[in-house]
């Protein structure tokens, strides 16, 4: 399962099967195909190897890791670090937080981005340039860390999920990709729907969105991955560890196992094992769920970006 998922991330294309279909490929084309296959296989190996290596290290005994003997296959199979991390109830609390934050924040982001992008795609909208300008302005300038913190705090969002979900809800890059996609839809479709009696909201919900599954799926992926990996907003605005996402939990765990904080203290044996494999275990535990999402949205992912990009 992991291997499949990893392959999906590396973006390896389906094998090209041009042969035996109608026109006979030229010699040059066949050479090109061969070279292509070799290069792409190399890319797959190069991208896959580090990940397989990480998985192998996460399952190995620390002695073999220190001796530099772990490559593709785990040596001295050892699950202690997994056990150590998974046995902590705070890990599960934080993992649940991550799932909740990701789902809620992604839903909010998708709704807001879709609405904004759809409005901006309408050429007859008055003040459209200004609205685009307002969005683009935030790509280049931000209020700064402390003003943001003061703002979020005085809005009463500190220590709530809204501090994570609301301030980052619209990503301007995603917004512009989506706007370009909506602009590419033929106006005639919407005119026909209007003639048939749909109002603006009906057009958006019944005509435009069903035709935009590709771009929405892409955006879901972009947003979900971003929220899944994010820790900075949570670190800024959340003062209680039972609210933290798992990214902070694991980041802190690594810092604790490797930091100078332990100087002079002698750690327990399980912590020693943990130190050697902790980074690998962390990477596996945090990437696994999001990797599993990729295969399901990947086909939209490819098509969606193409559509948006060409017309944009």
């Amino acid at each position, binding site marked *: 399962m992991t291997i499949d998922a990893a392959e999906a991330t590396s973006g390896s294309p389906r094998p090209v099967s041009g042969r035996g279909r109608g026109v006979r490929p030229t010699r040059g084309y066949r050479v090109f195909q061969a070279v292509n296959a070799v290069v792409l296989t190399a890319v797959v190996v190069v991208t896959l190897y580090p990940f397989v290596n990480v998985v192998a290290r996460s399952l190995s005994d620390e002695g073999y890791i220190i001796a530099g003997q772990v490559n593709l296959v785990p040596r001295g199979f050892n699950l202690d670090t997994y056990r150590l991390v998974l046995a902590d109830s705070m890990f599960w609390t934080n993992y649940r937080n991550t799932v909740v934050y990701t789902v809620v924040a992604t839903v909010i982001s998708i709704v807001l981005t879709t609405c904004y992008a759809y409005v901006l795609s309408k050429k007859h909208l008055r003040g459209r340039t200004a609205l685009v300008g307002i969005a683009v302005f935030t790509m280049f300038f931000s209020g700064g860390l*402390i003003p943001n913190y003061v703002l979020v705090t005085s809005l009463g969002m500190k220590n709530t999920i809204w501090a994570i979900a609301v301030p980052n809800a619209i990503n301007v890059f995603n917004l512009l990709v989506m706007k370009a996609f909506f602009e590419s839809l033929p106006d005639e479709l919407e005119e026909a729907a209007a003639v048939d009696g749909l109002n603006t909201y009906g057009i958006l919900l019944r005509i435009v969105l069903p035709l935009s599954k590709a771009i929405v799926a892409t955006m879901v992926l972009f947003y979900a991955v971003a929220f899944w990996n994010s820790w900075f907003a949570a670190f800024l605005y959340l003062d209680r*560890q039972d609210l933290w996402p798992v990214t902070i*939990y694991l980041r*802190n765990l690594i810092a604790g196992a490797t930091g100078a904080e332990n100087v002079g203290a002698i750690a327990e*044996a399980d*912590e020693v094992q943990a130190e050697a494999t902790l980074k690998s275990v962390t990477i596996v535990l945090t990437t696994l769920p999001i990797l599993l999402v990729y295969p399901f949205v990947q086909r939209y992912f490819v098509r969606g970006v193409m559509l948006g990009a060409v017309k944009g």
Partner: protein
Amino acid sequence: MLHRSWRRAATAAVAALLAATSVAACSEDPSDAKDLSENRAGAMSDYGIGKQFTASEPVSFSILYNNHPNYPLRDDWLFWSELKARANVTLTPVAVPLSDYEQKRSLLIGAGDAPMIIPKTYPSQEDAYVSSGAILPVSDYLDLMPNLQDKISRWNLKPEIDGRRQEDGKFYILPGVHEKPWQDYSLAIRTDILDELNLTAPKTWDELYTVLKAMKARYPDVFPFSDRWSKPNPAGNLLNILAVSYGLQGAGWNFQHTSWDATAKKFVYTGATEQYKQMLQYLNKLVSEKLLDPESFTQTDDQARQKLANGKSFVISANAQAVVNDYRPDLAKTNPTAKISKIPLPVGPAGEINPASRLENGVMISAKARDSKNFVAMMQFIDWLWYSDAGQEFAKWGVEGKTFVRDAAGMPKLAPDVNVIGLNPKAPKHLQKDFGFYNGVFAYGGKPELVQGFFSAEEQEFQKVLNARPPTAVPPPHPLTDEEREQASLWETPLRDHVYQATLQFALGQRDFAQWDAYVAELRSKNMDSYLDMVNKAHDRYQKDHG
């Protein structure tokens, strides 16, 4: 991602800057700094040395809490309930992950949202906040802290504390204090190889050279010394322990631009001194005779550990933890007959000294806390918990009969069902995880018996040797003004980079020592003299105003 990392990098600077603008407005008029009549709620009128602090009414203080993953914060710790019972104090922690503690601290202070008590602040980290007025000049309130005053005078800590004074003659941090310096870092050496060659552990750097030579003679194809801790800067530990052995202030990961020249009574530039040259010549001798692995200056810790584990080297930088957690388990897997131990810090031309600082990370107080009606009670509480013998013992060992018992000599000893750092591996409960004691936020410093309470016999032996050596002299105070500090940091970066670069070139033999004067001239062209001039002026000024 770029955006985010930029934000992270800019945090500290922005925080300090904003702290200046946002909090300066509400800083106090110094004339009423001493009138505490409005701030005595909950305070004890007869608080003093040897007295248990108990607030006369229930009080609560907010505290920034560095959440350590090995003992994550829990509400049901005996530590909290016992604090309530003994001191009538409730602490409300603002939990911050240890991984990014300093960044959050900057942010909260900058945003004017800092808790009253800000612990885990290392000496000199407070400098950035002083001008903002967000941090309380605690030296004004030492009379509320009898235990701290007592320790400063009994342990002769005045020079160390004076080193923390700012340009206004006040200090802004309540540092953790040790009676004896605690030097943890030294070198570890394969003692079975020493035995095999009929050698004793080297006591000086010259003896180390002899020992390495003998090892090389017996094992010609190994580099007997291959060092670690070279990221991000080369040979962080090795350069530092060498520099202090040559009488300098520090180098490597403890890089110090200036060292105090006691005979000339002025500061000199560490990287341009004759002593620095001599220590580089020593390193160069080791490298050119193939005794020290040239990769020592660039390799990762893992590479250095692998060489040691695989018998490709016999000497490596170490602290107590590295020996027990890294080197011995590594060797046990590859070579069960191997033995390795930390040797007492080798002695250099500066003679027997213990270079460790006697100051530890400590506590800053938010300037806002001064307006609290419980301010006096808070200072008394801090004095009791962090500086009284009873408070320190409580924070470290816990409650007698529950987490520890006393042996015949009255020394504390872990209760049989309580474990910490592997001392009672079978015990069902953990002093840190389950009770909240021996917590890095609350427990540090103190008398050597307390500091070394959990040390192994081996480490206690090491400390005994080092504690017999006198502590290094502390350089006199030379606080810079804000503008000077800004100017200094502009000069410091190029100077430091150049010293690092030349250090590597000289040590590895890429640059001949005949070029030493040229190198010093290069430092001059990077404003070394102006920099020294500024530091020496700051020193004179301080002597004049506050000396």
